[in-house]
């Protein structure tokens, strides 16, 4: 049999083979109505997401830079200054450091409180009681993730704050109360991601560990957790980024003081709480309004840092 070209194989009346699409790029795009409709919906959804992220960043940047460009606040004194008296008619000061510090302190303390419990829960779910873990613990944790933050705030208000007041004196509204409430709040998020990352550790490693005389505990502690390493860290940092952005629950228990806290038992404030508390009392374009936008910009930038760290850890996890 002769091996013919495409033209030989197709009937002469149809000209070129159907296999070859002669249409232009645009022609192909609009070829079939249903195809193009699906494409338009999906492409525009993706585009919308990107536009939203860029728009939010741009908007916040423009608004956040106003206080430095238009109002001529000094950027350095803004982020390092410890005095926040924007409402003084004579010589108002904008020192945002107490809030940056408060945000970071709440975040790290919350992570410190949540991490051991979350990893413990994850080990229980993924390694010890696998059936029970997936059938009972997983739904419980999903419920905990779904509880609105105001409920966590209320619990903090009615349990944590009185407890601290009784045992440590003061009002009970302080930094550690905020960290505690947020720590409990991010606990389920961290636990469920950590459990997923433990489940992703291949069984062959557990078998290898048992085969060399490892006990269950040794296997978990020396083999499974180190093997899950970077993705466990990702879980923690994801929890931290959630803690960092939380406003409502923190605001209810932290005491909202504008001074730099001297200890974890001092009332304090965070970037988010100061924005939610003050924004309603300002007029657009006023100095305080601009300064609050600047706080928002700082918040966004630090959130980006968290995301970059998560991406970096994810990449490192893949390459290993």
């Amino acid at each position, binding site marked *: 049999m002769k091996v013919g070209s495409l033209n030989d194989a197709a009937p002469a009346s149809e000209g070129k083979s159907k296999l070859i699409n002669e249409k232009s790029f645009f022609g192909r795009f609009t070829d079939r109505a249903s195809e193009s409709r699906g494409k338009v919906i999906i492409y525009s959804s993706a585009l919308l997401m990107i536009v939203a992220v860029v728009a939010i960043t741009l908007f916040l940047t423009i608004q956040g830079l106003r206080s430095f460009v238009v109002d001529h606040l000094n950027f350095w004194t803004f982020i390092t200054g410890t005095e926040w008296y924007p409402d003084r008619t004579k010589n108002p000061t904008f020192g945002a450091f107490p809030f940056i510090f408060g945000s970071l302190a709440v975040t790290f303390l919350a992570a410190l409180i949540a991490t051991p419990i979350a990893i413990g829960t994850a080990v229980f779910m993924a390694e010890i009681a696998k059936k029970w873990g997936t059938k009972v613990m997983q739904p419980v944790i999903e419920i905990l993730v779904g509880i609105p933050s105001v409920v966590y705030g209320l619990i903090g208000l009615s349990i944590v704050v009185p407890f601290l007041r009784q045992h440590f004196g003061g009002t009970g509204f302080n930094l550690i109360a905020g960290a505690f409430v947020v720590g409990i709040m991010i606990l389920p998020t961290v636990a469920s991601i950590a459990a997923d990352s433990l489940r992703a550790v291949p069984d062959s490693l557990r078998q*290898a560990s048992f085969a*060399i*005389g*490892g006990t269950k505990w040794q296997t978990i502690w020396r083999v499974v957790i180190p093997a899950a390493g970077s993705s466990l860290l990702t879980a923690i940092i994801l929890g931290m980024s959630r803690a960092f952005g939380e406003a409502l629950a923190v605001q209810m228990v932290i005491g909202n003081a504008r001074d730099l806290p001297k200890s974890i038992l001092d009332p304090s404030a965070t970037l988010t709480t100061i924005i939610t508390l003050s924004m309603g009392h300002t007029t657009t374009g006023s100095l305080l309004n601009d300064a609050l936008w600047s706080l928002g910009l700082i918040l966004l930038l630090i959130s980006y840092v968290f995301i970059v760290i998560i991406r970096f850890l994810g990449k490192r996890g893949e390459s290993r």
Partner: protein
Amino acid sequence: MMIQMENNIVTFANNNTVNKEMPIQINVEHVDIYYGDNHAVKDVNLPIHEKSITALIGPSGCGKSTFIRTINRMNDLIPSARCEGTISYKDVNILNPKVDVVQLRKEIGMVFQQPNPFPKSISENIQLPLRFAGVRNKKTLRKATEDCLKQVGLWDEVKDRLDRSATSLSGGQQQRLCIARALALKPDVILLDEPTSALDPVSSSKIEELLLELKNSYTIIIVTHNMQQAARIADFTAFFYQGELVEFGETRKLFTNPEKKSTSDYISGRFG
């Protein structure tokens, strides 16, 4: 003494070292293994001789892997697996529920089909079993690392990069590392579950040579689907078929003069 089969497939390079006088180290009597309702291994009786290589051969799904994983109780990890009968080792029935499986696995090591080094450094891979056993002394650990790597012929290849990740090694090197890791606790018996089936021919033959050396100090049981491999290295061979131990004997005899028809059918490649 070299015997070659007519079709040139099987070469016995090892039978001059067959040692019938070697005492029995592990004795398997009437062992039945079930996965739920599935009767995977049926009434197996088998002696394992000390300091010799015993190969378990048979087609896929014949129960040979299930059986080898019972010897160090790895099947405990499968909830539905159940095991009856007696496997005596050091006057103890391994299948007794009271047996300390952690100690048992220190004395009966295992190497798996897929090389499974820990995602840690090369030296940590060798040292982890010792750390599990409570060894803390740095000098002892370093010495053991060197000894084990030398035993598997990996020392010269990796001595300059002991701190590098074990996953950076080639497949064959990883498998030799896994063997070295199994040697770290100086076990009596080493179980190998198709250790070369994921490797290229050169790496496989290196492992075979290694096993022939190791049998001077250890009892070796190897599952293989490669009959030539069994013929090349094993002193004794057991042929499993559909969960039953069809035939067991000296490798040379089993391959040249099998008693059962299904054995001769399998080794001549008529099925499998």
